[in-house]
């Protein structure tokens, strides 16, 4: 049912964990089936230096979480903001149609983390 890439990211997730002193944290829940993803980013200048995730969800949710962390590491915030659920799904060689919504989780968590970072910076300034 899943591509080899999905299974690889699911069984060997990259960047799993938390960043205690993260600059931005995005927590999103998946309304379709009740799953949760948390994404932590560490930003230096304008670049995402480190990223980690924690996910409560299906194989696709864990794999897309892992993939999105790989995609954004070292990217500028502007580049990262352009990453959509489609980008993530394509990077995993596709997802079964019923699982496409899981990739929203990852993209949404990323965008939420960036927004959180911007808000925190704005309040500091």
């Amino acid at each position, binding site marked *: 049912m*899943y591509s080899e890439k999905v*299974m690889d990211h*699911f*069984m060997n*997730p990259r960047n*799993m964990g*938390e960043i205690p002193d993260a600059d931005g944290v995005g*927590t999103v829940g998946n309304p*379709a*089936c*009740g*799953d*949760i*993803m*948390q994404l932590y980013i560490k930003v230096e200048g304008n670049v995402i230096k480190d990223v980690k995730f*924690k*996910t*409560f*969800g*299906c*194989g696709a*949710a*864990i794999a897309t979480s892992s993939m999105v962390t790989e995609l954004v590491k070292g990217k500028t915030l502007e580049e990262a903001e352009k990453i959509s659920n489609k980008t993530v799904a394509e990077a995993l060689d596709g997802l079964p149609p*019923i699982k496409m*919504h*899981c990739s929203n989780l990852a993209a949404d968590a990323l965008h939420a983390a960036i927004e959180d970072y911007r808000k925190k910076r704005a309040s500091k300034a």
Partner: protein
Amino acid sequence: MKRIYLDHNATTPVHPEVFEAMVPYLKDEWGNPSSIHWAAREPKKAIDSAREKVAALLGCEANEIVFTSCGSESNNFAIKGVADALRGKGNHIITTSVEHPSVLNTCKFMEREGWEVTFLPVDPYGMIDLDQLRDSITDKTILVSIMFANNETGTIFPVEEIGKITREKGVLFHCDAVQAVGKVPIDVKRLNIDLLSLSGHKLYAPKGVGALYVRRGVRITPLIHGGHQERNRRAGTENVAGIVALGKACEIAMRDMDEEVAHITRLRDKLEKGIMERIEHVKLNGHPTKRLPTTLNVSFMYIEGESILLNLDMKGVAASSGSACTSGSLEPSHVLMAMGVPPEIAHGSVRFSLGRDNTDEDIDYVLEILPPIVERLRSMSPLYAKVKG
């Protein structure tokens, strides 16, 4: 790779003796049992003999058995067939909220057709309240359709009491016993069951054959109209090999049930105890004691079922889950929801269902590989992080 099958409630392998019994009817005895000539003789005899074997297992007469194509057809036939035949008598059907979709969706269809349907709720163990059943029966009620045992949790309903109530109130009792036949002794006469569904592939016969017991005197309209097969109750040239297989499977069930149930119960209990001892935050779904010997449904809190199943599958272990993520509709199991299990706990449910071929080694292996899988997934879960603090 190791292959350990713990999904017998989904389907069972064909028993070697069943396979042997059906082969002649695929090979040499291919005649149409309705024909007048030599080619019909052996297949016709084989069907009669299979019918007697099914009847013997259920404690009824052979002519009270109608062969069908599957459990779903038997359920559709029972509900639609009785409703149609008793259309003049009433317009109310009672069932439960935890039935298999082949009963539940048939009842929803009947609602759309203008019937009134009561879906009885269940308690946290998946049990119905018999007083509520009694109170739900009105003079418009024509049929009560309640399963023998639940396919997801294994919870066994108080069928004997249900039969007493329906008999006393003069309404028909249909029982979906697809999961119970061969695992629990069933005597339809003693239990006052009027119609009972069973399915071959849950009973070590192949897919594509089932049966409905219809008590003599119960009026029922055919679901499949056509020729005169099955005494005008189910048209279509008989699935001879499948019927022979179902007969053989019932014969074997009668012969081996006690021994197999003892073996399976022991292994299931070992699995249950082992999981509870080795893994924290596990919740049993279903009744602790009134439960099929084959079934263990547990929720591993803070993690999701599909991701557990994928990990088990990578290690050769087949099981199933009531998680929304595995359902296709993205809704958690309707059975667990009806029991009041919170969605996030239903998410982590895994059903292990055992069968005659399982061994102690199988269970030892699962108990060895499961704790690290749960541990790893929990380490990824934001919910577990909160619990651990």
